[in-house]
């Protein structure tokens, strides 16, 4: 019996060795970074969650920049959006000795210690998409702060509802109850809502990143409160779910919904009028700029304190303090959405 087990284990081991040896020679296989290679720098790009279109389109822009600058780009992140797994990846990359790590922290508190540790190992660490405490990174590639996002969400919704005189209730459909990012936005949304005394915040409903739950929540909210005039669906799964819910409830035009999403995912709803505005920035450009900044930091052609940075096809970008600014928040409407393909 013992012999049998050992045999089995040995067989498994052979397969494993064979299997691992194989891909080295194969063409096009993804290659891990190796410290030995000189000259070519390695940049890691960490999204909050891998596998969702927003970050996938960022990654496309990042890849474009990587090709232009001839850097090795590793794009990986937790498929479930867990900040703990993200922190583990940062730790791993730091041990691999990569040159730069670009982090979009799903929870800055969780990621900051790992980022600081990576910096101590000599890795250039920057944040993009969302920020972390300033001592955890060199610069922040800033498309918009949480405050700007919260304000833009409320203002756009109010505009879509017909102006600041509209009375009624507003509800929020968020990602999960514990999503750090969304919770920060909610703080600013509440702050901004004070500017509109006619509006009242109803429920905050978690959708657990489940489109179906967001759909159901939108329908329940509409029925439960005849006063409901608007919904802020502030995660990329909640937004289309809520839009579909409003559409199927026959309330398109009466209840407005807005949120952050890529134009591609919301195009149909904007075209059929269920959604008037979608808020976002140019995600491809964001990814592109991030890799540009990271590579130049590594090569020393950009120091965090410079007033501007040359970013390839984007031209010169302004630097404010330690924030590299991408530009304004975009609002996609029926009129302009077809100009954006991402």
């Amino acid at each position, binding site marked *: *019996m*013992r012999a*049998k*087990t*050992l045999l*089995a*284990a*040995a067989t*498994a*081991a*052979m397969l*494993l*060795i064979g299997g*691992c*040896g194989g891909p*080295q020679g194969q063409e096009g296989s*993804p290659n*891990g970074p*190796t*410290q030995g290679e000189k000259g070519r720098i390695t940049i*890691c790009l960490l999204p909050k969650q*891998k*596998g969702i279109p927003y970050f996938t389109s960022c990654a496309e822009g990042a890849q474009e920049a990587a090709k232009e600058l001839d850097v090795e780009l*590793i794009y*990986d*992140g*937790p*498929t*479930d959006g*867990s*900040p*703990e*797994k993200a*922190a*583990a*990846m940062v*730790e*791993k990359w*730091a*041990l*691999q000795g990569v040159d730069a790590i670009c982090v979009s922290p799903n*929870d800055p*508190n*969780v990621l*900051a*210690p790992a980022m600081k540790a990576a910096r101590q190992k000599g890795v250039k660490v920057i944040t993009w998409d969302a920020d972390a405490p300033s001592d955890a990174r060199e610069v922040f590639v800033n498309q918009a702060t949480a405050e700007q996002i919260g304000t833009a969400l409320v203002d756009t919704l109010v505009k879509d509802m017909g102006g600041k005189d509209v009375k009624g209730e507003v509800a929020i459909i968020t990602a*999960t*109850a*514990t999503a*750090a990012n969304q*919770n920060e936005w909610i703080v600013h949304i509440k702050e901004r809502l004070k500017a509109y005394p006619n509006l009242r915040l109803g429920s905050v409903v*978690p959708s657990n990143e489940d489109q179906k739950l967001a759909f159901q929540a939108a329908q329940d909210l509409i029925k439960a409160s005849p006063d409901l005039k608007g919904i802020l669906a502030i995660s990329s799964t909640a937004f289309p779910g809520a839009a579909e819910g409003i559409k199927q409830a026959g309330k398109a035009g009466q209840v407005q919904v807005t949120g952050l999403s890529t134009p591609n995912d919301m195009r149909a709803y904007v075209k059929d009028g269920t959604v008037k505005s979608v808020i976002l920035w140019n995600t491809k450009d964001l990814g592109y700029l991030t890799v540009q900044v990271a590579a130049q930091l590594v090569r020393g052609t950009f120091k965090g304190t410079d007033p501007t940075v040359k970013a390839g096809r984007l031209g010169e970008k302004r630097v404010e303090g330690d924030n590299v600014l991408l530009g304004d928040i975009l609002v996609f409407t029926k009129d302009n959405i077809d100009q954006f393909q991402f």
Partner: protein
Amino acid sequence: MRRLIATHEAGLAALLAALLVAAWRTDPAFVSWRVQSGLLPQIGETALLAVPMTLIVITGGIDLSVGSVMALASVLFGLGFRSGWPVEACAAAALAAGLLCGALNGWFVTRFRVHPLIVTLGTMSAFRGLAEGVSAARPVSGFPDTFLRIGQGWTAVGLFAALTLAGTAVLARHVLGRRIYGIGLGESAARASGWNVDRLKASLYAFSGLMAGVAGVLFTARRNTAKADVGAGIELEVVTAVVLGGTSIFGGRGTLVGTALGLAVLHEVRQFVGWRWSNDVLNLVVVGALLIGAVTLNGVISRRPAGSVEGG
């Protein structure tokens, strides 16, 4: 029986060795002390929870609520800290909460004689929901450095090592260990021998809760955050490691050394896949396949002849 355990452990050790050799051939840096010691803390909380889980599974039970207890402990720690309690008091409250949660599991399991799978499925939701409710899902952060330092090093792994050593001794030589195996193999015989089966079982669940409380505090220190989604999904990881380590899900069989090896294999496979391919998706597939594969292989090898009912 003992030979069977030994062979499973030998198989795992061989698998681990093979894995490390394969990794070394591909990228020697991965097997270096610097990298390995840097990656080790990541398995800390899982390892800590695997000790009581092994004991519980040996008695024929399971505890699915560990991740949720971690979250509740973490949230209570955070709430205490926000109200200005000293860190020691927060930690004591978190551990007490963990112990209480575990005791509640034990009470349900022994008092109502309901399958632990169902009880802890219920408390898994209930404890996590409680954590979400009392914290309104808001995280607490900004703990003092002295506290954070506890989490950065090897505290959890060290505690696991100590518990494994002590636990192995207890399982091998102590009356409690003998009873834990005995309950898993024949609860009736255990009761007929005058053992207080219910008290021992309830204590194990309480121990599990306490360790989950410790893991919750350590996690809070390691990641500088106290919030309600701490430890989500960790129960599956812990059970995977325990089962991979050769503990029978039906009870009566298993060792902590096996669990340690199971943890090591799980950890190394995952880290190596991440190191080599930087692909979180691949990890899901590899770990799932590893679990099914190992248990199937073990089942096929240790297949016993059919029971007493012949023919049929």
